[in-house]
């Protein structure tokens, strides 16, 4: 009996949908096809070799020279004249392609003798450097990846737009999971629960230290001693060629800790809040955002430790430091979006927290917290990592802005900001669609 009724209902729904949204469904298939074809075209299209610009960053200033692809093909030992170069210190030499904010390769100052010799008023680059030029000119990997990401954005955007359209066309459809409805719901819930989220974060923070001896001082002490460890271990014990290595690692770890904690929490979010979830209706993102606010409080305390570090190690700070804001913004939105998706799967899958733990551990070492992605990885791999791994990218961007006063990775930041907003929407959509079942499971 019951079974029959369910069948009947399903059939009825299908018929209705077919009549009213058939065209939209067809459009979706077409879109999917277009996306696949687009990706194939982007991956296989024979792009021509690219010109390379070289930026020599010295203590006296920077000098930029561009070489066309033909020049690079027949390149042999060459020299660049910079007055008084032998008395300057060279910080680093960066190579760029057309996108003049995404660095494709770096010649490290410490290893400069491998690539060039200094003479009076000029640098002579050897054949090794020419080989690096040729490699970077030939590989079109990065642009292909960036174009694919742009295509992905367009695809997702149109897909959501089509869903919104079908929601508009069929307003009496009882399936209230269209984008317009969900986004409205999300915004109104954020407004309604805003006070609660901050309050809950605040009380949780108090609860964490309520019975400890040093109380709130821990929020400062923990990052401070962390920092001390990095200064001693990486600065003294394991001598490293990167300048200001302690600051370099510490600033990256702050971001990583936030990301790591948020994702780890999101997996167990619903289960940890079983008491709440089974007794009242709470939008699940409220629980996640409340935890993110808590993590952000702690991050701010760590930033207090970072500031004296910048002063002690005499980091030159300029207006470029403002570029850390989009990097942090990306970190927050991305961890929210990914967190919402993990939150959903974490409810149903028991051992996901172990798997996520391992994945995060791997991601940590792939994201260049302890090293520079561009220098340490071989040539096509380093830019790939920067394009594909947003964590590596926002860390690299933040460090360049903070320590070198450089605005870098502009197109990548923009792409990933849009992508992470879309991912957040997808996460919200999944959770709204399934949250009915959560109470029955936990």
């Amino acid at each position: 009996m019951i079974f029959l009724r369910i069948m009947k209902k399903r059939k009825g729904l299908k018929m209705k949908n077919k009549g009213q949204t058939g065209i939209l469904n067809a459009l979706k298939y077409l879109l999917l096809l277009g996306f696949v074809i687009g990706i194939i075209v982007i991956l296989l299209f024979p792009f021509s070799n690219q010109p390379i610009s070289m930026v020599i960053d010295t203590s006296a200033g920077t000098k930029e020279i561009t070489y066309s692809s033909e020049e690079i093909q027949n390149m042999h030992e060459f020299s660049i004249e910079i007055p008084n170069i032998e008395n300057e210190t060279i910080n680093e030499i960066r190579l760029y392609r057309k996108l003049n904010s995404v660095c494709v390769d770096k010649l490290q100052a410490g290893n400069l003798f491998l690539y060039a010799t200094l003479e009076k008023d000029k640098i002579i680059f050897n054949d090794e450097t020419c080989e690096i030029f040729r490699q970077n000119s030939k590989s079109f990997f990065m642009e292909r990846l960036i174009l694919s990401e742009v295509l992905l954005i367009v695809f997702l955007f149109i897909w959501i737009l089509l869903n919104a359209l079908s929601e508009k066309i069929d307003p009496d459809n009882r399936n209230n999971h269209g984008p317009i409805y969900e986004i409205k719901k999300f915004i109104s819930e954020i407004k309604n629960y805003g006070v609660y989220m901050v309050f809950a974060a605040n009380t949780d923070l108090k609860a964490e230290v309520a019975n400890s001896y040093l109380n709130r001082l821990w929020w400062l002490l923990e990052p401070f001693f962390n920092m001390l460890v990095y200064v001693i271990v990486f600065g003294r014990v394991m001598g490293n060629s990167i300048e200001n290595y302690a600051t370099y690692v510490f600033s990256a770890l702050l971001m990583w800790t936030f990301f790591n904690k948020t994702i780890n929490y999101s997996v167990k979010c619903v289960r940890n809040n079983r008491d709440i979830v089974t007794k009242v209706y709470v939008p699940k993102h409220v629980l996640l955002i409340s935890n993110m606010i808590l993590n952000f409080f702690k991050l701010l305390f760590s930033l207090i430790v970072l500031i004296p570090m910048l002063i002690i190690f005499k980091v030159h700070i300029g207006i470029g430091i403002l570029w850390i804001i989009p990097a942090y913004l990306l970190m927050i939105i991305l961890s929210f979006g990914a967190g919402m998706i993990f939150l959903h799967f974490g409810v149903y899958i028991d051992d996901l927290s172990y798997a996520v733990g391992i994945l995060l551990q791997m991601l940590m070492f792939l994201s260049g917290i302890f090293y520079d992605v561009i220098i340490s990885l071989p040539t096509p791999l380093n830019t790939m990592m920067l394009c594909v791994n947003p964590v590596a990218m926002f860390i690299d961007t933040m460090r360049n802005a903070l320590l070198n006063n450089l605005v870098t990775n502009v197109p990548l930041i923009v792409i990933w900001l849009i992508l992470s907003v879309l991912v957040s929407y997808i996460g919200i959509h999944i959770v709204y669609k399934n949250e009915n079942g959560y109470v029955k499971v936990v």
Partner: protein
Amino acid sequence: MSNNVALDVKHVSIDYKDISHMSLAKSFRKGEIKKSNIVRAVNDISFSVNQGEILGIVGRNGSGKTTLLRSVAGIFQPDEGTIDTYGNRVSLMAIGIGFNGNNTGRENILKSGMLLGCKLDYVKEHMDEIIEFSELGDFIDRPVRTYSSGMYSKLSFAVTAILDTDIMLVDEVLSVGDERFRKKSFKKMEELMLSDRTVLIVSHATDTLKKFCDKILWINDGQFMRLGDTEEVLAEYDKFMQL
């Protein structure tokens, strides 16, 4: 007593899918999820409650009473059918919503109150009332984990009793604390129920139901059995429950 309908439940059915707690390995074998047996906890139940009315829900253990209440409270949507609360605020009376043992009683009252859908200022206004009702005295500023279990229940009962909503759903929470507090909470419940408030009670205590309820809904294994006058339905229910 006005005759406005406060709550309307129409043909509500709720399924439980037996997919709880999978491991990663299981989730890759997709067949198992699809075959998972669906259990119908509540099947095609309809009733409506007028404003100011008190409805008792009876039934054997596991017959879907709590599930129905949770659904009315909006914790999850029914799989079929509709629940219309006509804009009334609904709250499920439950013990210790969102309590954190390391926070003080005061902080927990605020947090719990906000989760029940009250504004921060509103909870603050009623703070003294709650503290007085809970009889905790100085303990209110100590961490909740230091409370005895009786004190804990007293506090959480006080929160839900004072911060009342338009429609109250009560799920067997009348036996809280010591004899004195029980009498007090019983009195409070009486007071609440005699005021113009809509209440749904789930209980096995027929005495309590006889005292308060205007009508009784009887469900058995998720199926609708009877809805009607308190005395009649309870008499039939008692007969049914005899061995």
